[in-house]
């Protein structure tokens, strides 16, 4: 019995699927390949992969539509979206539509392996949160649809970027998130100079939440690496 996690890789470009398959198999996964969204949905009827890596730009049913159909059909297999999704608002929407994570092409194949493992860890721990409308941690509650934050029942004001930072941290609890990752997801930059803006938002969040960086309830700084949300996050879906 093969105990390696099974990945369904969906991409229309043969050079990408062949090279990635080899790399993923070397990294300890079993890989099945579909060339577009339609094929992927058909394969999912007889295959139960642990995770789907889904390219966004494909003919005959693109990645986001495939994802929507999957979720609407009640299939919550974790999904990592590949490729440039577009601007930041689209990236955030992708999370709301039920993607667990994303990776922009071109990427370091090792980065994909790291993301796959992180998502699988979250899922095994029963913490798949991306589809939730509300994220709750103790007195803190986030309404993702309305983009509002509540502390002890009272709404607190956050800039839109600070909200997105908090949302992302809470969707990846107990994971170290680098500044570069925050910049890429929320601002749409990665190595274009300047991670200070991420620090500024974290400072704003700490002030608004009354979170002491020395003894954090919510956001912890990992020296030299990034930030981590340390509270226990659960979801509530309303309606």
């Amino acid at each position, binding site marked *: 019995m093969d105990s390696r996690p099974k990945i369904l890789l969906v991409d229309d470009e043969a050079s990408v699927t062949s*090279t990635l398959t080899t790399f993923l198999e070397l990294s300890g996964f079993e890989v099945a390949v579909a060339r577009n969204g339609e094929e992927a949905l058909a394969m999912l009827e007889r295959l139960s992969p642990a995770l789907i890596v889904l390219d966004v730009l494909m003919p005959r049913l693109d990645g986001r539509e495939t994802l929507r159909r999957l979720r609407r059909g009640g299939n919550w297999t974790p999904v990592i979206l590949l490729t*440039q999704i577009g601007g930041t608002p689209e990236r955030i929407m992708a999370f709301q539509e039920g993607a667990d994570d994303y990776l922009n092409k071109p990427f370091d194949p090792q980065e994909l392996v790291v993301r796959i493992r992180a998502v699988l860890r979250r899922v095994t721990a029963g913490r798949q949160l991306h589809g939730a409308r509300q994220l709750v941690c103790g007195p803190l509650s986030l309404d993702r649809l309305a983009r509002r934050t509540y502390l002890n029942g009272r709404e607190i004001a956050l800039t839109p*970027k600070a909200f997105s930072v908090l949302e992302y941290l809470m969707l990846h609890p107990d994971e170290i998130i680098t500044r570069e990752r925050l910049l890429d997801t929320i601002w749409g930059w990665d190595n274009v100079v300047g991670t200070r803006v991420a620090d500024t938002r974290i400072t704003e969040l700490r002030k608004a939440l009354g979170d002491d960086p020395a003894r954090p309830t919510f956001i912890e700084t990992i020296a030299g690496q990034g930030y981590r949300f340390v509270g226990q996050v659960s979801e509530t879906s309303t309606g």
Partner: protein
Amino acid sequence: MSRKGWWLLLPLGLGLAGVMLLARVTLPGTGLFLSRDLDLLLILFGLSLAIFAAGVLIVKEVMEHLRQQSIEQARAEAFAEHLRFLQRLDHEFKNPLTALRAGLGTLALTLPDENQQQIVRTLDMEAQRLSRLVTDLRKLAELERLPPEFQEFSVGDFYAEISELGREQPELRERQYILYLAPEAANRRLVGDPDLLLLAVHNLLDNACKYTAPGDRIELRIFMVEDSLAIQMTDTGIGIPEAEVPLVWEELYRGGNTHDIPGNGIGLALIKTIIERHQGSADLHSRVGQGTTVTLYLPLV
């Protein structure tokens, strides 16, 4: 004749004609200067001259307006085409680069020989360089495409943020770094995206550090110019050759004297895009071997 010349001719012509008409009407029988018929001729001549001058002025205005319009249109079309090109470039490069890096990743994991491993590492670094170029260009194109998130904030607060930027540039410890905020600017307010503006200034600082040597001076000054805010970065570094100054704002452009200094030529293009989105402008002055001054102008509230 200059525009001012034409403007003077008009009232002069009208005035002369008016006086002669008045003289004719109020003092019939007399000519102001000459015989009655000649007077009439002079009036008509004066009026015609005035009308002619007015006509020429009007035509000039309309033609100038049309000329400006077609220049604007040409610029907008060139810009849109440029954006489309960047998007096509990005689209075509991303899959081959992904496959390249995945293949190299596999080789890195499986090749037994250390020499071969070294070659793979070198190849992967080059693939990474290409990847970074492509994603930087994409980010630039996105910046030009997406609606920015603007808010109002004070110059003083912005200056406080800028002052912190120095912490991320270790080279500054070996430079003379001078910061200045003009007192009359501190209480003024800006409308914009503070993160983007911070990124622009950070790029300026990064460039200044890159193209200067230990001991050189870097000055960041914020002051008022008429009713606009000026953010000025001056350095005493290697400078930019005069012929290249108009070209440095283009993506991927790197000066001819920068061979030993790593960089991908995105910094100034990024700054230009950000400043234009803020309805501002920028200019650059430089002398090879003496240094460079870049000034960003932003409208104030």
